[in-house]
């Protein structure tokens, strides 16, 4: 069962690297925020799997809960901060016109 958990963890790490592309290359800041949110929700599961691999689930459950809470607070604070910024949408405005 440990081998299966290890394979699932490696798959989740691969998916986090794929989502990291959206953080690096996102046309707007809010796209990068979507990537950060997706990586954070995968990290909660990854922390629980690490807890099962190390057989210290009682400790890693608390870390996963705290990580989920911090992810939520970070996304809320960043989106509240960025909706007052003007000039955030210039590059993506061009891109939507070009696609449509």
């Amino acid at each position, binding site marked *: *069962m440990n081998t299966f958990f290890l394979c699932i963890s490696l798959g989740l790490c691969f998916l986090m690297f794929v989502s990291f592309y959206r953080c690096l290359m996102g046309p707007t800041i809010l796209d990068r925020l979507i990537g950060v949110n997706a990586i954070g929700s995968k990290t909660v599961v990854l922390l629980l799997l690490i807890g099962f691999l190390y057989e210290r689930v009682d400790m890693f459950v608390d870390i996963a809960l705290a990580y989920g809470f911090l992810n939520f607070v970070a996304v809320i604070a960043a*989106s509240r901060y960025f909706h007052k910024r003007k000039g955030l*949408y210039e590059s993506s405005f061009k891109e939507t016109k070009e696609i*449509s």
Partner: protein
Amino acid sequence: MNFFVVICLCIGFLFFLGGTVGIIRMPDFYTRLHPAGKLDTLGLFAMVSGLAVYNLHHFSFGTLLLSIKMMLIVFFVFHSIPTATHAIVDAGMRAGLSPLTRKKPSQLQGTGEK
């Protein structure tokens, strides 16, 4: 019991895979939020519930409390991820991002996307 755990983890991993493909492949900011908000929530629910069932192998009071705590993570995430998605949409709307629209039906053939 192990069979149920494996099935739950595979279903959750499939949902996470779909969410990641959606985040990469979708053409617009608002359409990218749709897989990010929904598929990640359901994938986390499936994987954490599978892990909570696996934790009950050696049944005692401590492992029962741990499983309840894992389901509390799921309860919290079910509230927090839609709220965060709504906050990002609100930021996009206030900043003036325009959603992706098709202008004319005559342009539909050339794009290759439906």
